[in-house]
């Protein structure tokens, strides 16, 4: 059975050349960058190259890039580091209510530690409520954490606007879903961002790898201590093959990016239009000007999980909310925050694309989704 992988916001298939490069490093050039001999230097070379590749992709300098184990670790390091850094200036930290659990749970922990945390609401389109932001923004705010693109809806958040209003607070941006899709220029349009998280496995790189951008001159407290790797911010022997894979993926995904995005938009818009035309009682959770690769739709009077398993029988892989929360019984906090009822949230599917998705695949996915929805609605379940 053919595979229709439409769950690229959960994770992506690594590029073949990433796999080849990593296999080569693991089997041939497995040195430790800290070793004094030549093999150590070769390994160090891979890490340096990767740092340059990631820095270029983010519009930053190599010395501003710190490798981590992924998006969650980057978020944790930035948020705890940022909050502790500013605790003498104030105790208030802001984020939105639609963040990834790595951010929300970090905030919850900091609240226990005595920080005043504010989870800002979003409007019905899933965009940060700027009025609420303005109301909460004051001298006491020392840290703001805001995601660039929401992982469940693809909605782009007003990061630049927040950056202009941040005052003396530090601004951390979770770019896990935007990196590789949107242009990221941390020395240009996004220069107000102090820290930014990215992840390898969302951009056809390996799992267990990511990076944290920390603006030059900003020193935060390390999360892991030990051998002093990554300039002391993140001790532990560098995961050289994964870091090299991340670097190569970061470089590759931005080649011809504008053309690739047009391709993604074309497929996404086709699917959205098709569903609007052919399936009744649907709610769109994604907007046209959102990230090009995510389409979230609530099919009323269905249950996302059942649709998911029905589609799986045709080799189609999608997700309900996000992969991070789909193991739990809880419903998407993101879609709910947009003012949807429990019933509406229940029938939500997220289709997330990658550059190699084709229009033919999308058509097949649409047809099968319609069948699944209709079957469910015919049979129903009583709740």
């Amino acid at each position, binding site marked *: 059975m053919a595979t229709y992988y439409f769950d690229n916001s959960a994770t992506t298939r690594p590029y073949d050349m990433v796999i080849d490069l990593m296999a080569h490093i693991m089997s041939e050039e497995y040195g430790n960058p800290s070793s004094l001999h030549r093999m150590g230097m070769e390994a160090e070379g891979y890490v340096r190259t990767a740092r340059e590749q990631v820095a270029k992709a983010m519009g930053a300098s190599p010395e501003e890039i710190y490798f981590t184990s992924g998006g969650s670790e980057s978020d944790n390091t930035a948020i705890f580091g940022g909050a502790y850094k500013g605790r003498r200036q104030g105790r208030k930290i802001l984020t939105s209510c639609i963040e990834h659990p790595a951010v929300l749970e970090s905030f919850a922990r900091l609240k226990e530690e005595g920080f005043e945390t504010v989870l800002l609401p979003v409007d019905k389109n899933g965009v940060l409520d700027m009025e609420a932001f303005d109301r909460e923004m004051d001298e006491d705010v020392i840290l703001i954490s805001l995601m660039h693109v929401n992982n469940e809806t693809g909605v782009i958040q007003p990061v630049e606007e927040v950056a202009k209003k941040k005052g003396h607070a530090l601004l951390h941006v979770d770019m896990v879903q935007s990196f590789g899709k949107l242009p990221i220029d941390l020395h240009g349009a996004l220069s107000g961002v102090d820290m930014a998280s990215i992840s390898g496995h969302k951009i056809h790189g390996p799992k267990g790898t990511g990076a944290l951008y920390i603006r030059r001159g900003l020193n935060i407290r390390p999360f892991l201590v030990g051998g002093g790797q990554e300039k002391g911010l993140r001790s532990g022997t560098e995961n050289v093959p994964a870091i090299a894979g991340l670097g190569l993926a970061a470089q590759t995904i931005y080649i011809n990016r504008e053309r690739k995005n047009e391709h993604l938009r074309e497929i996404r818009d086709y699917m959205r239009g098709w569903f609007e035309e052919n399936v009744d009682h649907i709610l769109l959770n994604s907007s046209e000007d959102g990230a090009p690769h995510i389409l979230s739709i609530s099919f009323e009077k269905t249950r996302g999980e059942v649709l998911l*398993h*029905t589609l799986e029988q045709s080799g189609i892989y999608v997700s309900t909310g996000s992969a991070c929360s789909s193991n*739990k*019984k809880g419903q998407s906090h993101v879609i709910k925050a947009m003012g949807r009822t429990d019933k509406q949230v229940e029938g939500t599917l997220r289709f997330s694309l990658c550059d190699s998705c084709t229009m033919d695949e999308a058509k097949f996915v649409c047809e099968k989704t319609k069948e699944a929805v209709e079957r469910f609605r015919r049979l129903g379940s009583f709740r």
Partner: protein
Amino acid sequence: MTEVNNTAMQEEERNVFIVRCGEAALKGQNKPYFEKMLVERIKRLLHKYEGVEVRRREGLVFVYADKKIAKDEIIHQIGKVFGVASISPAVTCEPTMEAVYATAVDYMKQLIEERGIKTFKVEAKRADKSFPVTSPEIARRVGAAVLKGCKVLKVDVHDPDVVLFVDMRSDKAYLYQQKIKGFGGLPLGTNGKGLVLLSGGIDSPVAAFMMAKRGMAIEAVHFHSYPYTSERAQQKVEELASILAIYCSRFKMHVINLLPIQEQIVMHCREEETTIMVRRFMMRIAQAVAKEKGCDMLITGESLGQVASQTSDALVCTDAVCDIPVMRPLIAMDKVDIMDIARDIDTYETSIQPYEDCCTVFLPKHPLTRPKLKRIEESESKLDVDALVKAAVESLETIEIFPR
């Protein structure tokens, strides 16, 4: 002479455990059979360790294990064997009074060091009735020897820190001070075979465990509603089954998709009757599977009044479709007590993973709690019951479950 010394040496390198068979020993004529089954089960559970020997002698089972294997590990394993009443790690010596005195003093010195005991008493018995000293006399003399050898100890016959048991047997004298309780029950496979309806919840694994504890061999049937339930839900049930297999030995689990039947019921019958009707189909299918697989009876985790399908009226309706016995070992138990057993046998944590099962998929808002058999039978007449059951039984897939 050399041979005797060799044996003594060997004994010293091994830990000895006395295993009591409890109820199994009471079964008169069948006693040797039960004991043999018990020894087989213990052997099978311990065969992953090297240097273990299991022997049956004079109504007891003796386990000898290499000292390299932790005592607790052996006790933990034997404790899982149905039919074991208690286990005592023991020390042994030649069956003479002098040898016992010396061994008892050493043994008590060790307990003083490990646990700081201050008081003790001695209880003795002779399995070897030809031994010239009577039991009370053995106890008295060993007590005197211990008092002399361990100055810090005093005798307390009412509430001693330690009771030292001395068992004079023809081959050896056995000294021990602990009786660690086993599960009791009867050795597995001494009481027919039952087919348990395993759902993935807390109750059904406990029901299977309780019947297996009475010696019943187990097979299982699991119903799912894929794609309304997920593959993870089935994975969870397989995991539960593999925990059960620790006690029940490897067994077969038959897996059946109930969705085609649920679809028919939802389309043709009244909403509030769904639960009870699905339940009746489950029992019918399980019964057909039981007959095909040579199981004598069904086992369910039902507990009176726990949910709509387990009220007395509902049980009348579900029981009406069965002509083989249905064992409901939890029927009169409270949920909290069932949960306690689930924790005890290690199934609880797995059971509470929140995956939807086939019973909750088409849960009506207000299920009937007092269904009337006649009315249910009328509703059912709209369906081709026999054909649906037959198709379900034919769709069965069998998975071999191995102990985790």
